[in-house]
C-alpha cells in the first residue's frame, strides 16, 4: 500500500540526512566520553539508536507524508490513549510515570506524542481557509495541544509538557494567526504565569529560580549549574580534548550524558566544538524551515514549521540551561543527548520534512 518510488529516492534530500547523521555521530562519541572509565554500554546503545534513527528518517522520508496527514487525528487519538494508559499502568521510575519497557528498552511515549500533535495541527490548519484568523479559531488547536500537554504534565514531566506551547505558537503564526492575537496570547500567558507558579512544588520552584543565583545554593539545585558552568568555562577555545575533561571524567557533572551533554562539548571540545555543533543545528533548522517554502501543500509547510519549532525550542532551552541563561528543566538536547525515544521521534520528524521536500514537484 505504501510505495517508495525510485524517483523519490533519486531526489531524496540526503543533505538533511547527512546533517542529522553528523549530529548523531557526535552524540555517540560524547556519550562514550561521558561514560569513559565505566563501561561502553551506553555508547554502544547510542550507536544502535543512531542506526535505527537514520533508518527511520530514510523510510519515513520515502513515504508520502500525506498518508500521515490524512490519518493525523487517528495518530493524535492513539497518542492520547497511550498517554492516558501511561498514567494508569506505567511504573514510577525516579518519581515519574514517563517510561514503559518494551523488550530491553525503555521508551518515552511523550516524545512521540509531540510528533502526533504537530501532525494534527498541520492537518487542522491546512483544512481551513488560508486567511488571517483570530483567537476564536484557536479553540480547537488549543484543545489538540492541551490534552496531551496536561496528560504529560500529570506524569509529572512539566518540561516536556511545555514544549507544546512553542509548537502551537509557531504553527498558528505560520498558518496565519493575526499579529494582534499573538500579542493577546502572550499577554494572557504572562498574566497566568504567577498562577502556574503557585501550583508548583517546592523543589520545582527551587529548580526554576536557582539559575538566577546558583552560587547561593551550591548544595542543592544550584550544584548542577555551578558544575556545568565550570566545565564549559574551563574548556576555553579549543577544549581539553575528548575523554580528558576533568569535570566530566571525575563525575562532577551530573547527567552529563543526558541533559548536560552540551557542557561536555564545551569542556572537551571548547568553543570551537560548541560553534560547530550550534552551526550544525542552525543549518538543520534553516533547512527544515526552507522545506516549508518549497512545500507543495499547506499541510506540508505547517508540518515543517512545527517540527522546526519543536527542535529549536528544545535546543534553545537545553543549551541555554547549560550556560545559565534559562532555568533547569529536564529537556534533552535532540539528537545529541543519550536516549532512544528522543532520537527516534526526532528522526521520524526529520523524515517527514524530507518527505515534504521530496514531493515539492508532485501533486
Amino acid at each position, binding site marked *: 500500500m505504501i510505495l517508495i518510488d525510485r524517483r523519490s529516492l533519486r531526489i531524496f534530500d540526503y543533505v538533511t540526512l547527512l546533517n542529522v547523521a553528523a549530529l548523531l555521530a557526535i552524540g555517540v562519541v560524547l556519550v562514550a566520553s561521558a561514560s569513559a572509565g565505566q563501561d561502553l554500554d551506553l555508547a554502544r546503545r547510542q550507536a544502535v539508536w543512531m542506526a535505527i534513527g537514520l533508518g527511520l528518517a530514510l523510510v519515513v522520508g520515502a513515504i508520502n507524508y500525506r498518508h500521515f496527514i490524512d490519518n493525523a487525528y487517528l495518530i493524535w487519538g492513539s497518542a492520547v490513549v497511550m498517554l492516558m494508559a501511561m498514567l494508569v499502568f506505567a511504573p514510577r521510575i525516579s518519581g515519574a510515570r514517563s517510561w514503559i519497557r518494551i523488550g530491553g528498552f525503555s521508551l518515552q511515549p511523550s516524545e512521540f506524542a509531540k510528533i502526533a500533535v504537530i501532525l494534527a495541527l498541520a492537518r487542522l490548519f491546512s483544512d481551513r481557509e488560508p486567511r488571517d484568523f483570530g483567537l476564536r479559531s484557536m479553540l480547537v488547536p488549543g484543545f489538540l495541544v492541551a490534552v496531551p500537554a496536561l496528560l504529560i504534565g500529570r506524569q509529572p514531566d512539566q518540561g516536556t509538557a511545555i514544549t507544546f506551547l512553542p509548537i502551537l505558537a509557531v504553527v498558528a503564526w505560520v498558518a496565519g494567526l493575526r499579529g494582534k492575537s499573538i500579542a493577546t496570547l502572550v499577554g494572557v500567558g504572562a498574566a497566568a504565569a504567577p498562577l502556574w507558579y503557585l501550583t508548583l512544588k517546592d523543589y520545582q520552584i527551587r529548580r526554576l529560580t536557582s539559575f538566577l543565583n546558583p552560587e547561593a545554593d551550591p548544595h542543592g539545585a544550584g550544584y548542577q549549574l555551578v558544575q556545568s558552568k565550570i566545565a564549559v568555562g574551563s574548556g576555553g*577555545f579549543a577544549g581539553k580534548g575528548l575523554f580528558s575533561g576533568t569535570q566530566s571524567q*571525575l563525575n562532577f557533572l551530573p547527567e552529563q550524558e543526558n541533559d548536560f551533554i552540551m557542557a561536555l562539548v564545551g569542556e572537551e571540545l*571548547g*568553543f570551537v566544538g*560548541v560553534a560547530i555543533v550550534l552551526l550544525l543545528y542552525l543549518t538543520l533548522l534553516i533547512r527544515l524551515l526552507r522545506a516549508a517554502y518549497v512545500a507543495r501543500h499547506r*499541510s506540508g509547510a505547517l508540518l515543517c514549521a512545527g517540527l522546526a519549532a519543536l527542535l529549536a525550542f528544545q535546543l534553545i532551552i537545553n*543549551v*541555554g540551561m547549560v550556560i545559565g541563561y534559562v532555568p533547569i528543566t529536564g529537556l534533552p538536547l535532540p539528537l545529541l543527548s543519550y536516549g532512544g525515544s528522543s532520537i527516534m521521534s526526532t528522526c521520524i520528524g526529520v523524515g517527514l520534512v524530507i518527505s515534504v521536500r521530496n514531493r515539492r514537484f508532485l501533486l
Partner: protein
Amino acid sequence: MTAGPWRSNPGGRARERSRKARAFYGAERLQRRALETDADRARLAARVRVVEWTVAAAVLILLLGFWQLQLVHGAHYAELADNNQLRQTRIRAARGLILDRNGEVLATNRASYEVALIREAVEDETAVLEWLSRVLDQPLATLGARLDTQRRLPRFMPAVLASGVSQDKVVTIQARRREYPGVIVQVGIQRYYPRGTTAAHVLGHVGEISPRQLATWGSAYSMGDIVGQLGVEGVYNDDLAGAPGSKLAVVDSSGREVRTLDQQPPDPGRTVILTLDVNLQERIEALLRGRKGAVVVLDANTGGILALASSPSFDPNAFAARFSVQDWQALIQDPERPLRNRTLGANLPPGSIFKLVVATAGLEEGIITPRTRYFCPGGKTFYGRFFDCLGQHGEVNVVQALALSCNSFFYELGVRLGRERIVKWASRLGLGNVTGIDLPQEQSGLIPSDEWLQSTGRRYYPGDTVSISIGQGMLQVSPLQLAHLVSIVATGFVRQPHLLYRVEEPSAGRAAARTHTLLARPAEFRESTRRVVLRGMAGSISYGTSRQARLQPIQVGGKTGTAQMASSERVAEKDEDRPEHLRNHAWFVAVAPIQEPEIVLAVFLEHAGGGGAVAAPLGGQVLASYFGVPADQVGYREIPIDPRETTQRGQREPTLPAARPPGSGSPRQR
C-alpha cells in the same frame, strides 16, 4: 501508483457512495490545501522567514554566551576547574535507636571495619580479589558480584567489598598495604542488636535497599543505602533512617579531597520506643528455646505488646554485616523456618480456644443462659456421625463446659447457633481479619463467612458447624489474634494491638515526635456475658483443663486448646505415635489478674501435643515471670479428694452449683 486513501474502491453501494463523496469533497479539499496562489505562498514565506530570523538570533545569542564563558572568563573557570574542583558527597545518617518500654536498647549502631577497593589504584583486579577472598575467607564469586554492583561509582571512590571485618583480618590486610595499594580499610557504621536473637522477629533487620524499594520510596534514598527490612526496622524506617547530610569538598585533579568547603551534617534518625518489655521477652524466649512455637503477651489496658516471641529465632546481626549468599540460603532453607514470625502466621486451627467465641455467641444470642445445662455422655451423634468428647461430664452449664472444655456442650450449642451467628461473633471478636498491628506480613486467617464460602466455592455441610463449634475445621487463626480475642472477652473493650509507644527526636531533650494513639471501643456484648465467660476461664484454672497454669497468689483465667492436625482415620492413634507433622498443636490463653485484667497472653506450641499438658505449664511460667512469683508456685499438686465429691464416669449429675467445681474430672481431660 496511487496509494490507499485515494484509491478508488469499486463494489458495494455504501462504498460507491463514499467514493463519490470523497471524490467530491476530497478534490475540493485538495484544491484548498495546495498552495495554489502566489499570494498564499508569499504570505507563508514571509511568516516562515520571521521564524527563521528568530531562531538564528537565538542561536547567535547562545553562541555569544559560550564566547563570554569560554573566552572572556575562560581563564577564571579554568583555574576553578584545575585547582578547585567541587565534589558533593552524601554523608550517611546514623540510624535511630530502638528502645523497649523501660529504655533498654534493642537496636543501636557500632563502628565496624569495612574493606574497600579503589579500582583506580588496582592493576590486576582478579589477583587482588583472589587474595582478598583468601584473607576474608569469602568466596571469590561473592566479592566479584559485590564489586560489579558498584561499577558505576567513579574509579577513585572506594567500593565496599566486606563490612564487619574482624580485627585480625584487618591487621593482615594492612600488613600488606604496599603490595595491594588499592585495598583500603575504613571505618563504617553498622547496625547492632546488643541482645542478639532476642525479639528478632519484632525488630526485623536491615539490608541494602532493593531496586523495588528504591523505585517505590523515591528520591529520599539512593542505591547502596541501608534500610530496614521487615519488623519494626521496616515499618518505622522513615523515622529511623534520618536524612543524609552532604559535604562539598575541594578535590585535586586525581579526585582526592583537599579541603572541605561546606558540610551539612546528616540528621540522625529518630528514636523509636516500643511497648515491648525486653526482659520479659528474653525470659519467654528462654522458655521457648528448643521448641517451635510462639508466645504473645498483651497489656490488657492498652493493647500494647509486652512480648512477642517466635521460636526458633535468628540473629539479625548477621544481616548487618553484608550477608553472604550461602548464609542467606542456609537461613531460608532451614526446615525449622527461623525467619517465619509464628505470632502473625494464621494458618492454625484454634481448637478449644474457639469455645470462648461460641460461649459468648450463645449467651448474647439468647440460646443459653448461665443456667442452661446440656448433658454430656462422652460425645454426641449429629447428622449420622459420632462426635466425641474427651470426658463424660454429665450435665454441665456454660461455665463448667468452658472450664472442663466439654465438647458435647459446645456441639449442642454450636448446632443451635448455626454457622452464621458463630461467624458473626468470631468476626466481632477479631477473627478472620488482621488485628492491624504495626508489623508487616500479618495474616488475616479464615472464618467460614459468606464471602469466603462464595469466593472459594467450598461446600459447607451442616456437620461442619459441629466441627467449628470446638474450633476445628474451617477456622484459621494466629497467636496474636487469639491474644487479641482474649483481651476483648476479658476486658469488654476492643483495643488495637500495637508495638509503638512513642517516637522521639534524637537530641534536644528527647522531644516526642509523636506518641501512639490508643484506640479502644467498647465490645458489643453485655457485661454479664463477660463475667460468665471469665468465670469459665477461672474455673479452667481452678478445677479444669488449665490447672497446670495455676499460679498462687494471682487469680488467673485460662483456656486450653488442642488443634488436631490428623485426619479422622489417625485420630485413634496416640498423638505421640504419629509422625511429627501430624501431631496436635497446643494452645493456651490466659488473663490475669482476673478481677482487674493487667495482661493477656497466648501460647502456641507447634506439633507439641495437648494444650493442657504442654502449653498451659509454659503459660504458667510466663505469668510467674511477669508477676515475679517463684516458678515453683506454678501448677497444681494432687490433693487427696474428698470421696463424697468424686463422680463416676457417665453418671448423671443432677445439679451443680455454679460456684463449685463438679469434681476433679478425669485425668484424660484436656
